[in-house]
């Protein structure tokens, strides 16, 4: 087979930047880019790029993945809409969010920060990549959104972290007892990292609702959304009961 029939190496591995059908209609690609660009952080995180590559040279994810922060910055800087969309299918999830790139960039760009704008946009547009990538993250999201804690002692066990070896705890005892032996009373918990005040959780739910976080979640994982909103409803009932009891007590006192 001739070289021409095979296409160029760039076409084979990356796609033809000028020919062929775009992955999405142009209007949709523009909408995705507009969402990234409209974030007030965009102009702060992107100031220019000379392709020096210092960001990629220092990037931990670039050691292990087909990922380059320089490429991400270039795609955004040159407004390469198809390239941006393509990067959102997998590459943006490789970033380890260490911000080494941002600390080093002579232009003051933050490739890591730009990645976050792209991840948020991937979620907003309910991209399959976001759904696939975030499926194993659902335990953390459930914990965080319903309790205000991202990690809890009962999540750290040998079933979930087999590669951590046998020393999850070097003292064999029930988790509840080991937690009781921590000399900070706020930490005598197993289902949350610390005891969270009921009022605190209720306030957090208001934040989730007013900032569109629950909508984000619903678009990515409807089942998880249902579970979380059930928990929120229950806790809100508990809070109402507490307030009613408190009022009754005050009335009884007077």
């Amino acid at each position: 087979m001739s070289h021409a029939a095979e296409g160029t190496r760039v076409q084979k591995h990356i796609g033809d930047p000028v020919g062929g059908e775009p992955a999405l209609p142009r209007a949709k690609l523009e909408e995705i880019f507009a969402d990234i660009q409209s974030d007030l952080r965009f102009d702060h995180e992107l100031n220019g790029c000379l392709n020096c590559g210092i960001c990629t040279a220092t990037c931990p994810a670039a050691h292990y993945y087909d990922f380059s922060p320089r490429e991400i910055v270039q795609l955004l800087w040159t407004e390469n809409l198809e390239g941006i969309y393509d990067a959102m299918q997998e590459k943006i999830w490789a970033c380890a969010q260490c911000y080494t790139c941002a600390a080093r960039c002579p232009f003051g760009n933050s490739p890591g920060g730009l990645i976050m704008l792209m991840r948020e946009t991937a979620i907003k547009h309910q991209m399959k990549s976001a759904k696939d990538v975030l499926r194993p993250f659902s335990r953390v999201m459930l914990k965080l959104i319903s309790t205000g804690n991202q990690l809890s002692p009962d999540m750290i066990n040998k079933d979930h972290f087999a590669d951590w070896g046998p020393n999850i705890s070097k003292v064999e005892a029930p988790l509840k007892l080991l937690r009781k032996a921590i000399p900070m009373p706020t930490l005598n918990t197993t289902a949350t990292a610390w005891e969270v005040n009921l009022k605190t959780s209720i306030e957090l739910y208001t934040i989730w609702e007013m900032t569109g976080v629950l909508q984000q979640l619903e678009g990515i994982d409807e089942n998880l959304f249902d579970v979380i909103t059930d928990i929120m409803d229950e806790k809100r009932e508990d809070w109402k009961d507490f307030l009613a009891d408190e009022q009754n007590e005050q009335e009884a006192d007077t």
Partner: protein
Amino acid sequence: MTERFTGHGSEWRDANLTPGEAKIATSWVELKVDKRSMLTNKDRVEDVRDIMWQLEKDGEIVVHRVAEEHEPLMVKTLYGWDKKIPTTRLWHHKSCGQCGNIPGYPASLLWLMNRMDIEYLDETDQTSCTAWNYHGSGIGNLESLAAVFLRNFHQAYVAAQAQGLPAGYYFPLVHCGTSFGNYKEVRSYLLHSAKLRERVRAILGKLGRLVDGKLLIPEEVVHYSEWLHVMRERIASMREIDCSGIRATIHPACHVYKMVPEDAIYDDGIMGGNRLANSTGLMQSLGAQVIDYSTWYDCCGFGFRHIISEREFTRSFAIDRKIRVAVEEAHADVMIGHDTGCITTLDKNQWIGKAAGKPVELAVLADCQFAALVCGAHPYKIVQSHWHASPTETLMEKLGIDWQAKKAEFVAYLEEIKSGKPENLYDPRRMVTSGPGFIPLKSLR
């Protein structure tokens, strides 16, 4: 010819340097890369506190000040700017990863504070910063991060009122490095953007968390490792165990000094001012040997998402770029960190190395855990070293601590608390400041 996909184009050729030439080339790079100037040669640098004071003057915000009562000590940051570190009346803003996974981390910090009669509050009215989830998943946004920041810091401001004390009495001390970096970044955006302030003012108003109808912004965002840094000589004066034989490597946390780098502490007397001062200064004051190593700048491999669902990356990076280098190059006895995710990653991901033919082992502790240990804290009751997977026992042996005897004491203590009350670092009645379980001040007295 085998095609190589180098990404450099067909004209690229291997340099084929001799080992001597490679060493010269590497040394040149290290001379540049290892310097603080790598972070400081930027055109666009501003101190957002200038905007903060102007906004307060304009009546837009209220600033929660680091007051005289907080007995602040001054430090210099990356560009030589001043930063005020409060040393007492502290509101502990806990870390979900530390509390859930490495509880000896906050316990050691509070134990040190008790030894120095530092006033503090550890309460239940606080959430995580939510930034671990945000950086890992993209669920969340600038508004939600800002609202969580302002809610938690407002609670720090008013918390003392539950004890009959004035607002502003306590100043927040942030335990987690990611919370610290995230809060500083969010504070900067809040100060820059009237639109963001307007949006979150509506949320904070609904929560009843405005001060005189205005947003409350902290004068400084302070990390616990900064508190340790300014208290290092006082801590060193309490040292009971000689640690001069210990070779320590420091893992500086990315979100502590690469996010909002201009606010990180540097001291010309500590590693020539070319490394973050936090932790290094403390270890030197305690008398340990701090050993530099070539990959000090690398992250730990935590990755936020990767530690959950891409663990091959996390453990490979932790072993190859950090632990193995610290062991083989620096001949370290311990790696010291000052952030939640780093300690977890570096501590937990060594065991699996055996399966990959990389059996390297190194004790991993947070700076405050090491400090507490050499100041005489119980290795299990306070430092809670049983939650560490790395070989902390080897380190303890080198420090002359009979860990087996201490462990036996702890196991006996567990039997005692099955039926009795555990020993606590503070009165548990103070930990609830409102809502269910709140005990009013009169009852406390």
